[in-house]
């Protein structure tokens, strides 16, 4: 009975949303704000990747909020699982096999480089702090899978994420002091498409990358360190 009603409701919702499509300008959106960004985004921010321009410049505070959400989630996970950490004497997962260990060691530098590349070129090509940060986190987390007894130093992670967040806010405050506007673009725009261009955007993305990387690495290692349930 309950499933029936639920299906009915879900079907109804789907029906209404599909009917909605008839009245929506799909494929030819009005793009009022979008046109504006397309027209002036590159000039205003110096970023070739207009998505990055939007993420970091036009909607920089959204990104700050998003970082905070990730931060809050990581802090929440820490709070929830903090007491459930594995006791030192508890049985850990077995060490990974040779392939995993070798792969982790080999991949580590590769992943770090790729991650940094993605972060640094965020204003030019697809990718940026978030994607790069995830890759960086993977770089640091993979070895842990192989050697479960090792653990990341949560104090270091805490400082990295705290300072990276502080740098992001700090750049915003710097702008507030220098230009009177929080998170306004600073420094020269440079040449469109060059690595050192787009003012503070790459700096912001580096902060984002570090913060995301640190948070996700911390998050995963907290999960990894959690004692298995049901024991």
């Amino acid at each position, binding site marked *: 009975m309950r499933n029936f009603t639920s299906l009915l409701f879900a079907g109804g919702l789907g029906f209404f949303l599909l009917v*909605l499509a008839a009245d929506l300008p799909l494929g030819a959106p009005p793009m*009022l*704000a979008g046109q504006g960004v397309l027209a002036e985004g590159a*000039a205003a921010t110096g970023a070739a990747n207009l998505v990055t321009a939007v993420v970091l410049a036009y909607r920089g*505070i959204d990104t700050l909020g998003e970082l905070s959400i990730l931060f809050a989630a990581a802090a929440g996970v820490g709070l929830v699982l903090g007491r459930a950490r594995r006791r030192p004497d508890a049985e850990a997962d077995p060490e990974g096999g040779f392939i995993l260990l070798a792969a982790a060691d080999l991949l580590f530098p590769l992943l770090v480089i790729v991650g940094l590349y993605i972060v640094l070129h965020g204003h030019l090509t697809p990718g940026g702090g978030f994607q790069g940060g995830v890759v960086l986190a993977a770089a640091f987390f993979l070895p842990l899978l192989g050697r479960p007894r090792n653990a990341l130093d949560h104090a270091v992670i*805490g*400082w990295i994420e705290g300072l990276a967040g*502080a740098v992001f806010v700090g750049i915003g405050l710097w702008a507030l002091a220098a230009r009177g506007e*929080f998170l306004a673009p600073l420094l020269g725009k440079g040449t469109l498409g060059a690595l050192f261009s787009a003012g503070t955007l790459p700096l912001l993305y580096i902060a984002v990358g570090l913060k995301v990387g640190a948070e996700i690495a911390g998050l995963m290692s907290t999960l990894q360190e959690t004692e298995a349930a049901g024991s």
Partner: protein
Amino acid sequence: MTADAVTLAVALPLLAGFLSPALGRSSRTAAQWLGWAALAASAAVLWSVWVRLDGGTAAVAVGGFRPPLGIAFYLDGMALLFALAVPVVTLLFWPRAGTPQQFALTLVLAAAATGLALSGDIFNLYVFYELTAVASFGLVAAHEARRAQAAALRYLLLSAAGSVLLLAGIAVVYLRTGTLNLAHLATLAPERLQDPVGLAAFALMLLGLGVKAELFPVNGWVPEVYSSVSGRLAGLLAGLVSKLAVLVVVRALVLVFPRPEAAELMLVLGTLGIVVGELAAWRARDLRRQFAFSSIGQLGIVFVAFSVPGPAGIVAGLAVALHHLLTKPALFLLAERWGGAIEGLRGAGRGQWLASTLFILFALSLVGVPPLPGFWAKLLTVMSLMEQGTGPARAGAVVVMAATVVEAAYLFRTLGVLLARESGAESPQPHRGPDLATASLAGLILVGSVFALRPLGDGLKALAAQAVDVDGYVRTVLGGPGMAVSHPASQAPGGAGGGARVAHVPPEIAS
């Protein structure tokens, strides 16, 4: 200090929040002081902006990108009032016994709540809304008892489902209008959102936001969460966070969806919320759940009041919301003191005269006894509903009044138990000084406001007049005096530069 500095009110608590866990590893006290300092600074910034605006309005283009493209913060009386309430209430309800992580989450919650009050961009509001949500999940789950974690998980799933709906609503609005800015939407709404699609978008957004705003029936988390966590956190969530979610709904209703159908949807759900909340509270057998359900009922009244179009509804809604903001957290603190099953509290209030007196005061005000502020709030609500004169509005008024009877019945039944002569209670709970002080402060403000009814009323009217002034909003945000000077580089190609800023908006944007 310019109006642009208002971004500090969001940024500083976030900054402190980011640093708090790391700092807390070496010194918990330092983290605590950092948080207090950030909140105090946030309050100071907001206060100075309030003083500087002196009843006017202003818009702040965050990052200097002019509003239809960038994100704008809109500052009027209503926004600043609630924004200012955030750091103050957060300081009062600071988790003293918490860990640095809890401090961080509280700070993040405060920053997000401030953002909710100020932001004038629907997606930015969504981000702040989610931030509020995630921070409150963390805070709820941080509580020791296992029931808190279960409640937090259920809350999270419900809230996340609501967020998906909210996101879908935003997608529909964006697809229709091509913009996210509330002011820009306000200019576009008359031609682009005045149809069933617009209404559907509003319904999606209302229900998404309603999860936090304790809107019936998407408030199943309320009794579970409020009876699992400490009185301080419950007070913070019930008092502050729910109001800010309501504020967002009201902004959307006034600016983007000024249709009678939209208001009616709010009215109907609010009315049902009153009925269900108050009745469930009548039946509740323990103090915390009684207050939790009562909170649902009160939020129902807030929704019903805000559903009245025009300044009358805003005045009534603000009055009810502020009154609830004052009383319910304090009641949760008192519930913390006594707690537990109502029948087990026989005589527990005897000998604790301050706490009992405060309880009586809040109960009287909630029921609406003149001359306490609760009465005026209720009177304004009923009057504005009757003035509106439609069938649903009258029904809403009747329900508000009938709920008052139920509310009086259960509140004073509880009070009768608390003050019963025969004592069946075990030893009363340990004395919690700070909690009682906070509750006393709320009581003092409540009583004090009786003597300032006239200025308060005038102030509310001024706020409401500002809040319903859609033209003023649009003028302030999209160009006109008070708007922050946009960044030179962000001018549109071919723009004249300086001067009239409306000219910067490309023709197709300004349409």
